[in-house]
């Protein structure tokens, strides 16, 4: 089974009031987890998105699509990055819990739907 583990927020929010040591610790945790998941063969993909303040949203305005500056959701609810791992749900939750224990912000775990292979 494949699961997507999603992280939310932007540069400002997760950083506010944190010490340099805390920030270094967070980077070490994320890099370490990434390496561990790669090493174990569980990692399918992992990507970090540019800060949500840089996002553009295409909206339907006056009967046509119009690009506007800014993310779709609030910055703190915007997707920041994700891991896709091939593992049990229990394992996916465990990976998320290790991050949440440190960072304090919630993370979402969702199964990726099966689809026939593309030709």
């Amino acid at each position, binding site marked *: 089974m494949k699961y997507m583990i999603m992280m939310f927020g*932007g*540069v*400002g929010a997760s*950083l506010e009031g*944190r*010490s*340099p040591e805390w*920030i*270094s610790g967070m*980077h*070490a945790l994320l*890099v370490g987890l990434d*390496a561990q998941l*790669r090493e174990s063969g569980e990692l399918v993909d992992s990507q*970090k998105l*540019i*800060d949500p*303040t*840089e996002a553009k949203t295409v909206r339907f305005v006056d009967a046509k699509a119009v690009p506007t500056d800014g993310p779709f959701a609030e910055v703190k609810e915007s997707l920041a990055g994700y891991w896709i791992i091939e593992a049990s749900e229990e394992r996916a939750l465990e990976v998320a819990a290790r991050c949440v224990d440190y960072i304090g912000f919630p993370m979402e775990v969702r199964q990726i739907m099966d689809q026939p292979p593309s030709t």
Partner: protein
Amino acid sequence: MSGPDRSVDDLLRELAPRVLGRLARRYGQLDACEDATQEALLAALTRWPADGTPDRPEAWLYTVAHRSLVDHWRSDRARRQREERAADPGDARLLEAAVEERSPDADDTLVLVFLCCHPALAPTAQVALTLRAVGGLTTREIAAAFLVPEATMAKRITRAKQQIAQSGAGFELPAADDVVDRVRAVLSVLYLIFNEGYTATSGPDLHRVDLSSEAIRLARLLRRLLPADGEVAGLLALMLLTDARRPARTDPDGALVPLEDQDRSLWDSSAIREGLALVSDTLGRFPVGPYQLQAAIAALHDEAPTADATDWPQILALYDTLERIAPSPMVTLSRAVAMANVHGPTAGLALLGTLDDGDLASRSHRLDAVRAHLLERAGDVGAARDAYLRSARATASLPEQRYLQLKASRLPRRS
């Protein structure tokens, strides 16, 4: 299975563009010639380590590639004939006779390079095709290097070859008055490949081809083909002198280490020696160009035993020249750093101010990153913190973002 023999691998990569160049010059069909060359490389990769490398490896490869091309045409023809129920024995014999080839022409590789960097192609297509046809990398390797699915890269390469065919470009050297422009295009493709490798987050992925080393290898090849072009030498020197610092650019945790904090004992001294020799050999002998100037600047950094010993006045003078012959906002940005080191942060900040209304302010995080550094040095820590954070939000590079976040967190908030 053990990995391929390093020396066989190197030899094949060196011979691949020569074989492909010869085939393509004769038959023009880049697509078919490329498939045939890949088949010959594959045959060599399986047979040479077992049977030993042949005495004339290039001729061996050419013969095998040529046979494969003829076979391909034959089966193509046979299929057509079956379909059309027509029989016409004819040109297959002519093709067979063509196996006896004239002496190889050194220009073939150069023509191939020009073709891969054809102006009708988008930069991503030029890069992919150059790595495949000139670099001899497999589609899978190129896809892995750029972190895209193999099918995507295969499509990109196929489309690039179709576009070249449609553009009507023949397998011949460009006209004399086009050559300078075409060489510039090739150099910018090589520099793109180099920078992709240099700025990429270096994962522990063993299958990822090292694009910087590949760009350096291709630049050496180009220098052999165009020994009298100062900019070719300049680009090679620039790559060597920049790449030499790679071991010191990240700490063991993968965090970025800026130039002034790098452990210079980790720099690759043989790459620096080679780069310095190229710079001193080139400057003054050929008309000066942007790559030579950037190489000369990189050389001054590499020659300094400590960051404090850097010859900033000389670097500033070189940036002045660079801005005269090839002005761009990025050059102004670098000149502001040199200016700050010679005349103080306030002078640097004043120069940065001239960029505020330009293109760079809206599309690059670098302006804010440089401004943050200079503000910090000028003692305006609150404004520096804000600029670090703005830059961290705008950058698309994860290691850079982490570095900028850390810099911001070390400064007190603006009250």
